[in-house]
């Protein structure tokens, strides 16, 4: 009986906690999510031969919004080199109306997002990647393997940047090298999980 109680307790604790972050070298989870901009489903199949950047971001977090111009800049720069970008909003719109599809569409349109802005309404994809905050980025190679995770840069202020996490990793992979800085600590707003 004691063992059963312990098992139930541990299972409960595991269910209540956020999933571990996806390990470097692990296979990236696939996803199919609705693009707020046009209502169409966008599918990401890791191993499609493309370098892919998955960015968990949102409408309401000031820190995520501070990185928005930088993410757009990097997307434009690296899409020209064949890299795919996916922005995913994992926040619960029931708690934060600003995270609704309509609000996402408005933001993506007014800011000229050069990538789909996908709704992960029940945070399933965020859980699968082990994302914790917005913004939180993942770089997946053409074979579907995670090569970088963490922050975009270590500062939202261009003049104070010391480490450019995402662009360094992209440059390494595009240059045929192993990523020198594979994991950084993403800082930002806690994902607003569906309760």
């Amino acid at each position, binding site marked *: 009986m004691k063992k059963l109680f312990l098992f139930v307790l541990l299972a409960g604790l595991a269910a209540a906690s956020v999933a571990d972050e996806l390990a470097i070298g692990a296979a990236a989870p696939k996803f199919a999510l609705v693009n707020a901009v046009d209502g169409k489903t966008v599918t990401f199949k890791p191993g499609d031969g493309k370098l892919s950047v998955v960015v968990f971001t949102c409408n309401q977090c000031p820190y995520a919004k501070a990185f928005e111009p930088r993410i757009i800049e990097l997307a434009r720069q690296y899409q020209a080199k064949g890299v795919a970008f996916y922005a995913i909003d994992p926040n619960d719109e029931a708690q934060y109306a600003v995270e609704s599809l309509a609000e996402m569409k408005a933001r993506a349109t007014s800011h000229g997002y050069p990538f789909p802005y996908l709704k992960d309404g029940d945070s399933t994809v965020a859980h699968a990647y082990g994302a914790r905050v917005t913004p939180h980025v993942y770089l997946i190679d053409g074979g579907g393997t995670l090569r970088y995770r963490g922050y975009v840069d270590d500062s939202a202020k261009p003049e104070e940047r010391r480490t450019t996490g995402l662009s360094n990793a992209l440059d390494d992979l595009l240059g045929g090298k192993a990523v020198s800085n594979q994991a950084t600590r*993403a800082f930002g707003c*806690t994902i607003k999980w569906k309760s």
Partner: protein
Amino acid sequence: MRLATLLFLIATAASAADLRDVDNPAKVKDVFPAKAKIRIVNIWATWCVPCVAEIPELRAVAAAFGPTVALVGVSMDDMIPETSRQKVVAFLNTQKISYTNLYYRGNVDDLTNYFRFEGEIPVTVAYDRSGKEVWRHQGPIKSADTIAELRKLLGRMQ
């Protein structure tokens, strides 16, 4: 100076928030008074919704103990470009926060590495006089739980 102006300045100074600048995470612990047995660091920002919701809980914790427990807030407001120190001062005054706060102007990596947290705020970490970590809570605290935990820790330090 007219008397009314002088009285106004005195009153303002008396109620002004205690916000000091810091750019090195290692300097945060220097702020605590020597007699504090437990030294609590709360990392937060005015732009962080759960952090703002947590403020009354922190006030309750700060009020529950005498000088044996000291609380210091570390504001991460400066991490976003469009904020200002004045905004934090105004917030501290509005919220009637009497414990010391630090306006962090350093690098985010330095701070997350020093306090060993995974980038989510609020996070609250307690240290003993020697600087050893004795308690930690990720996410908003509950004052009743935190006060009970701190009393237990103080009991063990007697």
